């Protein structure tokens, strides 16, 4: 059951993409909407049937299709509760994004919807993958549909944006590939049992002090993180995001923020942290500081943005750094918060992009200086905009709060709860700086609201002339648009008031996948370093060091 559902999750989008390619243009959007809805239904069934909720362990779905058995590469699927949640998120956002594009996309429709379905397949693949290469394949191939979506359907600078997006991402992820291969090669050389690219096997192997020395772990972590950091995106490597978001079509931004960015955070959680605990612990503070800079820097930048879409894009940077800060506090609270943040950021930022897209369809501008006081014109739209803005700034009672609060709390309490059950790193000072981001985020989001929702009515001067395209659209939101935003709002509210059904299974998952941390963290906190064999095995098993160039020892 679970197995066939998981295959269906991967195949249905691909098949629908093919169907769209061969179907008449008019039916493209209907096929897309229908199939993404069906996929969502399947994902719900999948979650329903999923057996790993209570155990927290990764439930293998026994679906192994060998691809390159010589290298132990299979399409093997499995899911943990975190993965299933992200699958649900992705599958939930997709039909909304599709339906949201009905009026916005009027040219090359087939390509548009087909690429989106391909994108969905890759996204679901990432969250279902249990094989490192399959994971990487989906992780990487998602660039292609996104590239086309930006490059064909994007804004004025779409070409540059798409290329930058692609190369930036690709540049990062090749390091991740190198890291994954390195782990697999070490596995082969040390275990002598042939190849394996099974993620769990590799993770268990490389986190074992008998197999990986300190410096190896360190470098594995660096390699893996390079790709994930770009995807997250962390502070100095975030500059692709505003450009890509700014230029992407609305649905592209929704999916980019909603699901694609989660590849990075999910990758860190699923692979980087469990595989290289030593690297993670030693680099923890570095990454935390990077996160802090990211939070504050991006928040400040939001403040001076004129383009509302760029503003939301930068706020994404700030928010995801927040999320990663929670994760890098390495304790239960912070990591749970980080996960909640992933989901909630997907919902609220996705919804905000949808809202902005609706405005853009009507006014053909995203410039906050040209728009203002839209409450008078579009009260329903304004309601949703305000709602999701509040959710984005972490108002308790809405979804954003739970993640944000737990992230902050995890970070803050990390150095104190060593006396408790689940020691973590970081500490109050990190949280205090992060709180500044919280304040500034209220500032820029409310300024944004103050400019476009409230205040005296301001519409673009040439609106009357350019509105012929928008003439099909009502002044305020159409029923279709309302029906896109309402589910997200309801889910936001539900999560805001009843996050427990998510928290419980996640807690288990986190304990399972970060099982090696509490002990190591505590040790690190006590000694300032880790007792870890510098050279793990000295009994004649080959080891290639990452940190010494080949040349130096070639003699």
């Amino acid at each position, binding site marked *: 059951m679970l197995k066939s559902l998981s295959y269906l999750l991967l195949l249905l989008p691909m098949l629908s993409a093919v169907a769209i390619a061969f179907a008449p243009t008019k039916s493209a959007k209907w096929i897309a909407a229908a199939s993404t809805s069906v996929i969502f239904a399947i994902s719900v069934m999948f979650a329903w049937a999923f057996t790993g909720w209570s155990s927290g362990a990764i439930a293998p779905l026994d679906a192994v299709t060998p691809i390159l058995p010589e290298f132990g590469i299979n399409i093997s699927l499995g899911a943990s509760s975190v993965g299933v949640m992200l699958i649900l998120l992705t599958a939930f956002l997709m039909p909304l994004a599709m339906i949201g594009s009905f009026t916005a996309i009027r040219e090359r429709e087939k390509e548009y919807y087909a690429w989106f379905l391909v994108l969905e397949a890759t996204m679901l693949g990432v969250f279902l993958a249990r094989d490192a290469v399959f994971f990487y394949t989906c992780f990487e191939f998602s660039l292609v549909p996104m590239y086309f979506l930006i490059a064909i359907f994007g804004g004025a600078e779409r070409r540059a944006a798409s290329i930058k997006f692609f190369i930036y991402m690709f540049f990062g992820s090749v390091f991740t590939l190198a890291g994954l291969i390195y782990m697999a090669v070490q596995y082969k050389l040390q275990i002598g049992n042939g190849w394996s690219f099974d993620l769990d096997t590799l993770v268990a192997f490389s986190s074992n002090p008998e197999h990986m020395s300190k410096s190896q772990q360190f470098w594995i972590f660096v390699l893996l993180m390079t790709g994930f950091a770009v995807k997250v995106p962390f502070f100095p490597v975030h500059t692709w995001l505003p450009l890509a978001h700014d230029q992407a079509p609305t649905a592209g931004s929704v999916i980019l923020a909603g699901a694609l960015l989660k590849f990075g955070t999910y990758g860190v959680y699923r692979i980087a942290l469990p595989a290289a605990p030593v690297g993670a612990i030693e680099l923890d503070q570095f990454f935390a500081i990077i996160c802090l800079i990211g939070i504050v820097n991006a928040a400040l930048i939001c403040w001076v943005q004129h383009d509302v879409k760029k503003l939301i894009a930068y706020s994404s940077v700030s928010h995801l750094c927040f999320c990663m800060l929670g994760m890098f506090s390495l304790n239960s609270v912070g990591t749970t918060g980080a996960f909640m943040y992933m989901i909630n950021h997907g919902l609220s930022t996705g919804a905000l992009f949808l809202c902005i897209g609706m405005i853009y369809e009507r006014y053909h501008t995203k410039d906050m200086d040209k728009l203002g006081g839209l409450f*008078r014109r579009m009260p329903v739209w304004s309601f949703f905009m305000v709602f999701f803005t509040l959710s984005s700034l972490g*108002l*308790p*009672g809405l979804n954003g*709060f739970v993640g944000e*609060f737990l992230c902050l709390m995890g970070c803050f309490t990390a150095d104190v709860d060593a*006396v*408790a059950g689940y020691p973590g790193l970081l500490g109050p000072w990190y949280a205090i700086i992060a709180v500044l981001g919280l304040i500034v985020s*209220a500032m820029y989001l409310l300024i944004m609201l*103050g400019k476009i929702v409230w205040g005296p009515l301001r519409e673009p001067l040439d609106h009357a002339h350019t509105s012929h395209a928008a003439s099909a659209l009502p002044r305020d939101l159409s029923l279709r648009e309302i029906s896109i935003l309402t589910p997200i709002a309801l889910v936001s509210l539900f999560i805001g008031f009843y996050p427990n059904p998510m928290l419980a299974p996640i807690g288990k998952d986190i304990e399972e996948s970060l099982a090696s941390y509490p002990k190591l963290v505590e040790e690190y906190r006590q000694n300032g370093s880790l007792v870890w064999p510098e050279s793990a095995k000295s009994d004649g098993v080959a080891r290639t060091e990452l940190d010494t160039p080949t040349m130096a020892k070639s003699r």
Partner: protein
Amino acid sequence: MIELASLSNLTAQALGTFVPAILSDATSNGIPASIAAPELRWAGLILLLPVISAVLCGLCAAMRVKSKLPGLITAVSLVASFGLTLWLFLSLSNADGPVAARTVHLFDWITLSWEPTHQHAATRWTSVTAPFALYIDSLTLLWMLFVTGLGSLIAIYATEYMESDVGKGYARFFGCVSIFLFAMGALVMGGNLILLYLGWEGVGLASYLLVGYYYTKPSAVDAAKKAFIMNRIGDAGLALGIFLIWVNYGSLEYSALFEAMQGAGADGASASWTREAIPYLIMLGAFGKSAQFPLFTWLPDAMEGPTPVSALIHAATMVTAGVYLIARLYPLFELHPHALETVAWIGCFTALLAATIGMAQYDIKRVFAYSTVSQLGYMFLGLGVGTSFGAVYHVFTHAFFKALLFLCCGAIMHGMAGQLDLRKMSGLRNVKGFGIISWTFLVGCLCLAAFPFSSGYFSKDAIIGQAFASDNPNFNFLGWVAVLTAGLTSYYAFRVWFRVCGGPTKYEAGDEVHSDADEAHDDDHGHGHAPAATTHHAAEHWHPHGPRIAINAVLLVICAGALLAAVPAYNAMSGGSNWVQRMVAHSSAFEGAQLHDAHGAEHAHHALSFTGIQDVHTATSVVASVFGMAGLLIALYLHLLNRSAADHLRNGLLSNSLTRWLPIAMENKWYVDEIYHWTFRVPLWALAHVSHFADKNLIDGVVVNGVARLPMDLARLFQPLYNGVLQGYAATMAGGLALILAWVFWIWMQGV
């Protein structure tokens, strides 16, 4: 509606006289353990009703209902909510058994627990739980009674006040009011700090939405933004405080928390900064919400909202949340006497500062806004000097009289087309329809000015008296400041009343008559209700109109409430006990050991001993009354008998180079906004631009694009080598060959 109003009226009376059985004679030291009371689950309806009302209002807005239905829904549900609160109060009062708080678990909200990973782990820290649970003790009940009671009354008032917006912002207004009531309920009744935080931010949201209700006015939008952001600063402190509380006490639920705190008080050993910082961070939150220095500037601006909102949120209820917070966490503050002293200083300073500003304002709503800040300062002073009873009593009385004052202001505004300038109105008591307003207004002013034997008189006295009773000389000093401030309060309150209601009848219409002409399509705009026909020659056709039944009735009821709020004090004077004091004494806000010390000192010696009056409270009342009467008389002279003298005084001060700064600074609110602007906002704004510039040009431009360009530039570097000349290629190849050979040779030599 009248029935509802009279019901609440009745209740207000009941409050004064009724002595709940369980609250009567307990003198237990410390907070009794709470009792889980699943049978009280229906109390959740108190929170649910406003939510339902908010949803229904939202539906009304969505369906573009063009009637007063939303107002009606809200009023009914709020009154029902009040009724439930009352019922809760009564049912708890009649119950037998020990005096204890009740906890009612509604549903799990945030539950996070993990297996301790090593055996040293203490059990308390292995979970973060914040159920959606109620914590009901007498403090909760006290607060909820006036929150829901005043909420209902003001909702009724607003059904009439907001009628010009029917079909436009009407549903939005009442929806937001409902949200506010829900959030305030969660804040007060919530059983843990995260739920309190939910309410805390929730009331901030409601405040944001309501202050910005007239969203087409940029000033309203700015004020709303400012309110939310300043509150957010406080909230951030509160959040950090909550984390620290968890860190130190391992729980966020009050019941567990108070237990842990009492333990901590007993050992009192650890004094790490994490513990010391808690009260200061909590204070930050309280000061943000309750508009204390340095986070007070948002409150006067928040008067941009509709007046019922000012009355409800920005005078009576929301702004007292800070007092509630500190009162609720009083056991914590008692562990940190220095923190309490800080509270006292800041409260007192704010009281004085705001009073001086209030003296110089011309906008009557602003005067009372500053007055609110000032009175809140009193409450914090009360908390700080150790009389949580005084503080809470002042909250209680202040809720009534300040709501009354604002509602009067609102009624005047409503009738005078938005006129709020006290220089442009005079003698309204004689204008037809403004009688009730004027006289209830007077009652409000009397209470505010702590006129002897008014409710404000007793509550303020409780605070100042405690300051004088204290052994701490600093507190005595603060007491003198408070007394001085009481005089100022009396002055500015009567300045308004004498100007607006006293003197010859003379008025001008407010700007809202004209504003319709200015913005022809401004369909959502409008304080008060300028008729649609006033687009031309508006001012000529305009007449002030008095309020109708709903407003007048509510004014009368609240006026009665303001007067009756003194009843508990009379009861105390006549040998009984003060009902409020008992309510406080049986809650977590009970002043523990500290107060007892002070009481011990009371009869021996106090700072007002020179008056020859033994009882410090009597002495205080005498002294404060003297100051208060002085203020009143000055106001009488300057603003009723000889109004030109006020201008002479002002001009006199202005012409003297030594004193000219004083009126200027006071009229400009001591430039606090400007100081903030230049010390925080501008540098931050500059930093934001620097960040933006750096991000765009340095990180993206130089580093990222530079890295991206590097290969290109390298390629250009090598480009001349591909010059198309055969020999050139051959030479380069041979050169490369030679270089490699040389290198190989070098390596080989090294190796051999």
